[in-house]
């Protein structure tokens, strides 16, 4: 990463765009990129269960600030439009967003980033909470990604009684198909995923000889990046972001300089 110095020019473009998602259906997405010709690596951000909200817009701009083409598709687009929390409640009450459309929308977002003349053709995927689960899922179900980050994704390990029409297969079942290196960030006090289920996933990754790196933070639970909430843990969050940027740089190439 290029260290910031105060004589640097900085600029970014951040806006809502429309793009073809799963099955070619048009959805909206928040897209941010550094100004400049690139080439830039890309990252698809998968929003958490509480919705396509302000926090994820911030995260998207954070990646652009660090030299990435960043896109966060609205996975709830097909459920209609309203405030992020109303949308989250609607999706929750409807049994959740189907895995099949999530995989399609995320895959389409990766293709969008790779199609841009600014792209270095490397794209990673990042998600937290349900988005962490989906990041792992999409890294197994597609070959579109060069690196994946699962932050405290619950229900990667799902007992049969928890499977639903929207989520018919536990993502751990797809581990053998994981198509890129995986970084996992977890909290020791999290109840979903528990340290036991993280260990179970780790065993499965070892079994199939996958390239992975897991970090378990003591004193942290679920959502330790979320500074507006009670689960925020500054030390774990700062270290987690650092590990993530190091990981992405290793597998996606050097992010664009802001000069």
């Amino acid at each position, binding site marked *: 990463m290029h260290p910031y110095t105060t004589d640097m020019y900085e600029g970014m473009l951040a806006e809502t765009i429309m793009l073809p998602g799963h099955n070619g259906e048009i959805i909206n997405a928040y897209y941010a990129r550094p100004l400049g010709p690139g080439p830039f690596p890309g990252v698809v951000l998968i929003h*958490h*269960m*509480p*919705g396509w909200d302000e926090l994820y817009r911030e995260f998207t701009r954070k990646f652009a600030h660090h030299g990435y083409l960043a896109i966060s598709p609205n996975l709830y687009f097909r459920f*209609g*439009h*309203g*405030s992020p*929390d*109303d*949308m*989250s*409640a*609607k999706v*929750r*009450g409807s*049994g*959740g967003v189907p895995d099949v459309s999530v995989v399609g929308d995320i895959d389409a977002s990766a293709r969008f980033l790779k199609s841009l003349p600014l792209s270095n053709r490397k794209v990673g995927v990042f998600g937290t*909470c*349900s988005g962490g*689960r989906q990041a792992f899922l999409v890294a197994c179900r597609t070959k579109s990604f060069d690196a994946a980050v699962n932050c*405290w*994704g*619950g*229900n990667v390990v799902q007992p049969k009684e*928890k499977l*639903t029409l929207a*989520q018919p297969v536990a993502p751990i079942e797809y581990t053998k198909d994981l198509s890129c290196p995986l970084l996992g960030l977890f909290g020791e006090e*999290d*109840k*979903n995923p528990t340290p036991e289920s993280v260990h179970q996933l780790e065993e499965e990754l070892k079994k199939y000889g996958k390239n992975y790196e897991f970090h378990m933070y003591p004193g942290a*639970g*679920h*959502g330790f990046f979320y500074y507006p*909430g*009670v*689960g925020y843990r500054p030390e774990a969050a700062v270290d987690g972001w650092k590990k993530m940027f190091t990981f992405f740089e290793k597998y996606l190439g050097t992010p664009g300089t802001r000069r």
Partner: protein
Amino acid sequence: MCTGIVETAEVSGSGKGPRGWFKLERVNVSYDHPTDAQLDHALNIDFVNEKEGLGARVAVELSAESARKLVETILVTLSRGDQGAV
């Protein structure tokens, strides 16, 4: 925690949302992330009427302890109502 625990029930009555009163059709009860309450997870209750759109929603996010108190309070109140109605 990211539980995905949701139960739903049909209900009848009225609720007051941001656009005023509307007829209630369904209640979604979940134990998961709250949006606003400063809790790791909460008992979330959404009274909704999907026909009236997303604005037709009355939401509360309660701690588990508060939710249990609410259940007890409702049951006591209903019991008193039943007695009073006899």
